[in-house]
């Protein structure tokens, strides 16, 4: 048993963001037109949280020999993986805050709830990243999800937004029930909810409380339920059906957040439970079982995501199916037991997706009216900069060299290939080739079709402009010079293996 170690310094980033969220709620209550001020408050909170995360990263690096830092009776675990993902969440939240200003101002939505919900969701995601206990995984997941349900339905009078939020809510809680049942069964089998105790129990094969041999069936069924629950959350096929509807109906700046943040959070909890707790070094048989299952799921996810994306006519649905396919690629990193390439992949994925959705939010205009690709015919030369930015993000998602997407895919495929997963890597590469078709179709629409109606030139505010520029810079930086970041993570790998 761990001692009750109430170390608030380890959760300082979480605390800072929670306080910032409450502050922006209060600030908005007293200033009715506070859209711009709230962006500054949020950014200040996020940057402060980033600085304290950076200090924690150094602390973890210098404490490397003693293993990960734990606090609150093992509820909070800080290692390089949790901190790397916390950085990703902070970046996502920062870009989403900038991106959403235009939506909130244009449509006269109340900004204070939006900004604080965004931060609360981020806190939930950060708790998932630093969870050392199944209770914490569940709690963080729900904090993030409940805030995101509300964000998805933020256009209160828009039928599409209502429907998206309702579908997200129903399927989100449905999948949470599966996840919880899995947790309950794993608790039943191993006798603990603490992940470290669980891994020790799996290693010894004995229940942590009774010290009798544990009932393996319970553990396997529990792990299966967890797999289904996480499958829903990261939208792997066949649990992906909610994704396109929810992404299409939600306001575009919310979609940008939903497609990146909560997904990366589900990935980190998935990694923590499966790759770290159900690891091969603890139980070879359990590990082989879930790796085989996940291999099938990853292949299905890539194929279904890419094939169905070919027939979509709505740009947000295209991006939704592309995000399903990307979940498939990222799952390959799980097979190779390599969290570093998954973290790097989620970073590149988040940046290019937020960029693409930012362009979509400008092109679609007020109220997201024009998301059908047909509406975009001939708009390319009117808004050349935007179209070129979209081209870059789309090529990056397809895996074009010199962009971040290529490097993300490269690292994932390389580790999987080295571990002997040849077939799945070949399938993934073929799928990337298929995906080029639907990534380039918007470009054909934009540049090679005649305008079928006189569209006004899309206007954008400076924050959206900055978001797109930052996303472009990030995409190129990760594509051309990934070495520095990757070597930073590689050092973390040596530290992590105990």
């Amino acid at each position, binding site marked *: 048993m761990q001692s009750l170690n109430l170390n608030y310094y380890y959760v300082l980033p979480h605390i800072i963001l929670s306080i910032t969220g409450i502050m922006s709620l209060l600030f908005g209550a007293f200033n009715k037109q506070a859209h711009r001020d709230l962006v500054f408050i949020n950014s200040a909170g996020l940057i402060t949280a980033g600085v304290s995360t950076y200090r924690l990263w150094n602390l973890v690096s210098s404490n490397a020999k003693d293993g990960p830092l734990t606090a609150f009776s093992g509820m909070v675990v800080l290692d390089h993986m949790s901190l790397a993902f916390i950085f990703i969440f902070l970046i996502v939240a920062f870009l989403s805050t900038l991106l959403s200003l235009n939506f909130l101002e244009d449509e006269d939505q109340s900004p204070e709830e939006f900004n604080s919900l965004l931060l609360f969701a981020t806190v939930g995601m950060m708790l998932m990243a630093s969870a050392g206990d*199944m*209770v914490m995984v*569940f*709690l963080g997941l*729900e904090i993030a999800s*409940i805030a995101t*349900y*509300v964000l998805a*339905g933020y256009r*209160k*009078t828009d*039928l*599409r937004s*209502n*429907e*998206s*939020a*309702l*579908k997200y*809510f*129903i399927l989100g*809680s*449905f999948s*949470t*029930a599966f996840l*919880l*049942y899995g*947790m*309950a*069964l794993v*608790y*039943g089998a191993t*006798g*603990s*909810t603490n992940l470290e105790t669980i891994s020790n129990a799996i290693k010894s094969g004995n229940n942590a*409380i*009774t010290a009798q041999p544990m009932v393996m069936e319970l553990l396997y069924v529990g792990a299966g339920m967890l797999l289904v629950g996480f499958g829903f959350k990261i939208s792997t096929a066949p649990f992906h059906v909610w994704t*396109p*509807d929810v992404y*299409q*109906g939600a306001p575009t700046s919310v979609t940008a957040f939903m497609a990146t943040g909560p997904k990366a959070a589900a990935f980190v909890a998935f990694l923590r439970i499966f790759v770290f707790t159900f690891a091969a070094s603890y139980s070879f048989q359990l590990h082989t079982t879930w790796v085989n299952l996940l291999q099938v799921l990853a292949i299905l996810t890539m194929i279904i995501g890419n094939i169905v994306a070919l027939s979509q006519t709505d740009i947000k649905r295209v991006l939704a199916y592309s995000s399903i396919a990307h979940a498939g690629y990222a799952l390959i990193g799980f097979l190779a037991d390599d969290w570093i390439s998954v973290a790097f992949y989620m970073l590149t994925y988040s940046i290019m997706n937020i960029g693409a959705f930012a362009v979509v939010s400008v092109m679609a205009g007020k109220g997201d009216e024009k998301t059908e690709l047909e509406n975009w015919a001939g708009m390319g030369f009117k808004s050349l900069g935007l179209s070129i930015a979209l081209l870059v993000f789309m090529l990056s998602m397809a895996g074009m060299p010199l962009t971040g997407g290529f490097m993300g895919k490269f690292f994932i495929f390389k580790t999987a290939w080295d571990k002997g997963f040849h077939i799945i890597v070949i399938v993934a590469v073929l799928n990337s080739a298929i995906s080029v078709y639907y990534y380039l179709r918007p470009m054909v629409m934009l540049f090679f079709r005649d305008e079928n109606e006189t569209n006004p030139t899309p206007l954008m505010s400076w924050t959206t402009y900055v978001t797109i520029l930052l996303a472009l810079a990030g995409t190129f930086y990760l594509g051309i010079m990934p070495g520095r970041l990757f070597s930073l993570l590689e050092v973390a790998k040596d530290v992590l293996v105990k």
Partner: protein
Amino acid sequence: MVPLSWYLALSAVLFTIGAVGVFVKRNVISIFMCIELMLNAVNLTLIAFSSFYREVSGQLFVFIVMTVAAAEAGVGLALVIAVFRNRESLNTDDINLLKL
């Protein structure tokens, strides 16, 4: 004393009824109730294990699940009201704007 397996079987049955109900039911409120049934089946499992092991961590988990379920119900019913205001229907067959 009732053996552990009876509790587990009961909660598995309750969970299945809830999961099937989510697919079968057409009214949003009924679907929501089915989800609550699934969550409570999980709570039953946790409590059964907790009392079997004579240890409290499972029961603490149940408290957290109940709290979160209450928060979720608040948000969920608010969303249901938002949909009903704009559509005047809670039948899932009518909520079909976003489709392939």
